[in-house]
């Protein structure tokens, strides 16, 4: 990812902080990221903002071993596609997890984390990541010297 000026980061801040998406009140379909039009209902659709619960399941995942500089502090990082319980898919990192426990279908919940630090302008960006539900992450910290 290339560095960009602050407005590019602020513009989507609310969506990133609260996991906001869209819902079509005509047909009930939900969307992430936010959309201005329901592809099914077109002009008949009525789009409203929705805040997702943040609960979902890992649809697919990978462990990144080679990352751009601004993400280096998180490497190796788990990047996953998470299917939210409301339906839409989001891409984010899975944190507080033992890589060996990762699997498709694993239940996760959204949490608020630092996404990256941008070197030159000093922008630090925050937003949602996901962590395993149940006591997985408690167990993770039990096994760490912190």
């Amino acid at each position, binding site marked *: 990812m290339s560095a960009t000026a602050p407005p590019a980061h602020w513009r*989507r801040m609310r969506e990133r902080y609260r996991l906001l998406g869209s819902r079509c009140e005509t047909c009930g379909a939900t969307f992430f*990221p936010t959309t201005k039009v329901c592809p099914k209902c077109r002009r008949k659709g009525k789009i409203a903002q929705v805040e997702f619960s943040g609960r979902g399941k890992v649809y*697919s995942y990978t462990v*990144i*071993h*080679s*990352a*751009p*500089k601004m993400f280096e502090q998180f490497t190796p990082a788990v990047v996953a596609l998470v299917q939210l319980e409301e339906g839409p*898919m989001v891409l984010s990192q899975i944190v507080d997890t033992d890589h060996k426990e990762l699997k498709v279908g694993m239940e996760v919940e959204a949490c608020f984390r630092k996404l990256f630090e941008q070197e030159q302008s000093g922008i630090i960006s925050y937003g949602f990541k996901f962590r395993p539900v149940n006591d997985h992450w408690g167990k993770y910290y039990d096994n760490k010297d912190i």
Partner: protein
Amino acid sequence: MLKKREVAVISAVTTKCGEHWDKGIKDLAWEAGVKAVEEAGISGKDIEYLVVGNMSGGMFVGQEHIGALVADFLGLNPIPSLRVEAACASGGVAFYQGYLAVASGLYDVVAVGGVEKMTDVEPEQATSVLAGAMDFEWEAYFGATFPALYALIATRYMHEYRLKPETLAKIAVKNHYYGSLNPLAHFRNKITVEEALTSPLVADPLRKYDCSPISDGAAVAILAPLDIAKKYTDTPIVVEASAIASDTLSLLKRRDLCTLDATVNAANKAFQLAHIEREDVDLIEVHDCFSIAELLAIEDLGFCKKGEAQNLVEEGQTYIGGRIPVNTDGGLKAAGHPVGATGVKQIAELVKQLRGEADKGRQVDGAEVGLAHNIGGTGATAVVTILSRRGA
């Protein structure tokens, strides 16, 4: 509406791909341009229109305005020139644009180029530039890299279709084998399944040998109406069809993570336009930016059912002599992936094969029909082009 004309390729060439530290973007375009004009037996003055595919001259070498740049450097002024961009499909899209120009009857002799100079920036910077082909706000922003996105596809594919890493390794082994027979390939070394499986992880389950390299290179094809083409060459290669389809830029909104719908749609359209059946195709050049992408391409182009390309790979059916030879030049993996040039480089390989002029050991005997498949991003753009030697 204008009546569509039949279009032929009269020459198509590529530079050697690799780390050309002594050559800049102009030098690469020059090398391919001169070679193409010589092979076509035309003069630069015969060219009426120039289309250049280039993904990111601006971010790779700080140079935009690539259409005029190449026209100027090749001495083609004042003909119209333009640069087209569709990430890694820029070359394929440029070819499509040139094809339209000739088919429409507006131009007779058209040059289609592709060029990318990628090694003037550090590899890590190149990775960032390539990330520009994905959704900036909802993929790259959350730490995704290109290998990571294809790794997400691979993990899901393994989950749904019981694909093994060994099968992906065999794709890289094949492509390196053909690269070893191709003097213009970026990599000329053969590898073993063992080497591929023990190479460093890039984005689990994809390892170094599952990923195509960062290459410099250029390719140029010269197009003309079929009737005029015969004036220049005894073996004009007919463009039976060229088709493009688009899909969601990000993986988030895909209908099925394991299918590139853009490939399916572009392929169906191309086969329909060409009146050619899958079983009549003698070889395919597919966009193997990652090993898993070659597997998806074979299926999504319609050469087997979803989940079954792994059997073709395991049985060696994607080698020459098998059911469908794939990437006989070494593919993106071994021949190289100078992103904006790749789509035109694939055309150059098909033309070579259909003329029976491929290097020793990698000629598909009696090849009549070939298909090229060029992808932008993770499948937001797909270009499928079918060529035949019907004009010869």
